[in-house]
Structure formats: C-alpha cells, structure tokens
C-alpha cells in the first residue's frame, strides 16, 4: 500500500526539506518503518524507546486520529494520507 505522508516542519531535516513523501505499508507501524528506511532517524523522533507513539505526537490516517482507531495497527489504505503533527498546539 502506498500512502502520502505529510511531514511536520521539525522533521523535514530528515526528508531533505520535503513536506510530503511517499511510503509503503499496510498499517501505520509499517509506514513508519518504511519511512525510517528512506529517511534514517525519523522513527526515533515519532516513537519512544518502547516503540510506541510519543505522547506529544498526533498522527492522522486520512482524517482520523489514530488514537481513536488502532494506533500503530491502524490500516493505511492505498492512496491514503498520513499526517504527523506536533500535539502541543492549541489552547482555546
């Protein structure tokens, strides 16, 4: 499954400045593993030492927050989009 991944500004040093990259994987965990293959170092920014999503990272598959779905097991349909966004925004 090929998806488009939107990269936040603070991770673009790993993607050569690109705001969007392509990655392969049937679920979010596989997509992040594939990102790591092509953009070494990016997985350690998004995942903690136990391999879980860091608590200040929000990830959306298409428009769904993966914390409302199956986390890293959330399916990533062909042609879909993944957005990685810092969680520390907002304050009404």
């Amino acid at each position, binding site marked *: 499954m090929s998806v488009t991944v939107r990269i936040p*500004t603070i991770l673009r040093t790993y993607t050569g400045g690109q*705001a969007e990259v392509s990655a392969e994987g049937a679920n979010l965990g596989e997509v992040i593993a594939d990102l790591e293959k092509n953009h070494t170092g990016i997985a350690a*920014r998004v995942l903690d030492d136990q391999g879980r999503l860091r608590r200040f990272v929000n990830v959306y598959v298409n428009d769904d*927050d993966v*914390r409302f779905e199956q986390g890293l097991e959330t399916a990533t349909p062909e042609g879909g989009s993944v957005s990685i*966004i810092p969680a520390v925004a907002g*304050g*009404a």
Partner: protein
Amino acid sequence: MAVQTVTTASASTTTSAASVDLGPATALSCRECGHRVPLGPVFACEECFGPLEIAYDFSSYEAGELRRRIEAGPSNIWRYAPLLPVPADVADKPNLNPGWTKLVKADNLARELGVTGGLYVKDDSGNPTHSFKDRVVAQALEAARAFGFTTLSCSSTGNLAGAVGAAAARAGFRSCVFIPHDLEQGKVVMAAVYGGELVGIDGNYDDVNRFCSELIGDPAGEGWGFVNVNLRPYYGEGSKTLAYEICEQLGWRLPDQLVIPIASGSQFTKIDKGLKELVQLGLVEDKPYKLFGAQAAGCSPVSVAYKAGHDVVRPQKPDTIAKSLAIGNPADGPYVLDIARRTGGAVEDVTDEEVVAGIRLLARTEGVFAETAGGVTVGVTRKLIENGLLDPSLTTVVLNTGDGLKTLDAVADQGLTATIRPSLESFREAGLG
C-alpha cells in the same frame, strides 16, 4: 540591523535569533527532554516533540527591589514585565494592556458553599475583550513583533479569536483567525467586530487546531504568527500573570487552594509555574498549595484520566455547553495530571446542568456574571467540597476566566419575573409588593 533569514530548530524567521529582545528570556527549553534551542517561533522539540518553554535569567533580581519595582509598575500585566518574555519598554508599545483584574472576596458564595477559610473569585471578565485570553495574546503579540510577523492568527473556541482580533487591531497587524463553525453567536460577533478575517471551519476545535498546525508548515502560512501554535511558548507565559496578581492581591501570599478551568491545560501549568517562580524569587513565603482542575463532563479527558489513575490522556469528542473548554485532545493534559497529583489537588468535572447552576450561583451571590467556564469552576468547587477533596477551612481562589455576556444561551431560559400594567394595582396583583 541586518535582516537575514536563519533556520534555527527548523523554523524560518525574518529576524535573527541574536537580535531578539525579549527581556529576561534567554532560550527555549523542552519540558520533556531539556533540549534547548534559541528563541524563535517554534513550539515543539525537534528531538521528542515535547513542548518548548521559555528559559529565563532572573539571576540579577533582588527580592525587595523587584517587589518595589512591580508595585510601582502600571495597573496591568506589564507591572510583571521583569518576569515575562517581553522587552523592557513593552508598556510603551500599542497593546491592549490587560490584567490587574479584580480579586473578589466572595463572602456570600463562601456562606453558600460552607467555606470558612476565605473564598475569592479572580474575575478575568474585566479584561479588554472580557476573558483571560488578553493576557496570553499580549505576550504572543510581543513575540510576533520580535520575530517580524505581520499577521496574527490562532485556532480558537471564541474567546481567543476576539482577543487576537482586538490586539491585532490595536497593534496594526492583519488578523486571520479560525474557529469551529458552530460557536456561540456572541463570541462570533465579539471576534468579528474588530475587522479582521474570521474563518469558520466545518469541524470541532480539535479539527481547527489540526488545520492550523498543518497551515503553519505550508507556504500559505509563511509569515504568520499563530499565537497558540508557533508562538505558544510565549503566549502561555501570559497565564503566569494570573498567579502573580492573585498572590500580590492577597498581600504577597500564596493561596492554599486554586480551582482552575482545564481546556488545553496550559493555563493550569503556567499558574503553577508562576507560583513557583514567586517562591524562588523570594516574593512570597514558601508553603504548600493545591491546584484543582475543572472540566465539563461532556469534555473531560483530563478528569477521566485523573480518576482512572492514568498519566496519559485519551482524547474525547467534546459535547458540552462549555465550549471555551471543549478541547478533546488537550496538549498539556499530562502535565495537569502531574501537577494536580504533586500538589495534592484533583481534577473533577460537572454536568452541563451543574455548569448552569454554577453560573447562577455566582451571579446570585456575588454579582459576577461568568461565562460557562466560570460555571464549571464554581460547580466543580461545590463538588470538591461535597466529596471532601477541597478543604473549606483554607484560603481558596476560584477562577472566572470570561464574561457571561459571551454565553447568554446557557441561561437564556431565565427572563422576566412578571409582566404587569404600569399601575400599583397590577404590581400588587403580581405579588411583588
């Protein structure tokens, strides 16, 4: 000054970090991992995504001299300029000059609730746009000026939209703010009247926030200062002034207990930071204090996590009349949990019916008309006393962060006591005399 584009911590700005004058602020430091970066319009740590906070150099301050300087300062938040990320001449710049709002000694409310140790309401409806948001926006505006931005923006549940619109109007900035499309009409009008662009998003606040976070990384958002996104480290510091004012108004004394509304949780964490700074600077005597968080049951991710003993917050889909607190995915939620537990406080929530009852109780007893967030704090205060978590024999401060005129719908079922003819007979017939 040579204007150059520098990239620090992955952020582009039109002003070099070295030229930034933000008073005692020296750097940004990650609250999670301690990684430091130069002052700039960045908000998340490039190492771990943790929130960046302002690091200060207060080493030159002597307590007595600092206290005299503050007391001689203006009757607004700039009396605390030596403790904020703002230039020394901040009071001379066009700004809304918020703060120094009333600390109401709420004796009538205390009697109703059985509080004997002194009950106070910090009434921030007295700010220029009638909510505490003027405090935080004032800080963000100074950062926006320092970093060369000309457009001020935000994601908002309403109060912030008005504060940004007004501050931008005063300072001569363009403003373009984003809100959920279904906000209370009063808040929409109070944001739109300042003449900036006001954009409704078909979604809830968390959707708006996500959109703004993406816009910031897009060329379309270049040159925009989002007060609660890329200027968030500066913005948040404005909430410290609530802690400073409460203590100064109590006679340079820490309260024993504070009840604070929780939306993103930023205000809660910054009040704690402000209290700790006053102790460290020797401006107040050190003693234990307890911080209590207040949420509406229809958006209570932090309260639910607190009660379950969790240290992470599971997001919720908000459904409450307390729209200014309707953040289902609160950025500072984990820190609220840490602080509530560390100080011996708690996080509690109340139903929408209890929110309305809280609004009416405060209005009836103290003549203070609170918005729904104030109804939440009053309702939670009552509940905390009933369940034994808040000690009524201690000095307690309850925050009202906004004006009831913004959320009239919450109490709109209340109206005329009677309609009579203009005659004494009719007056008596209605049982009024």
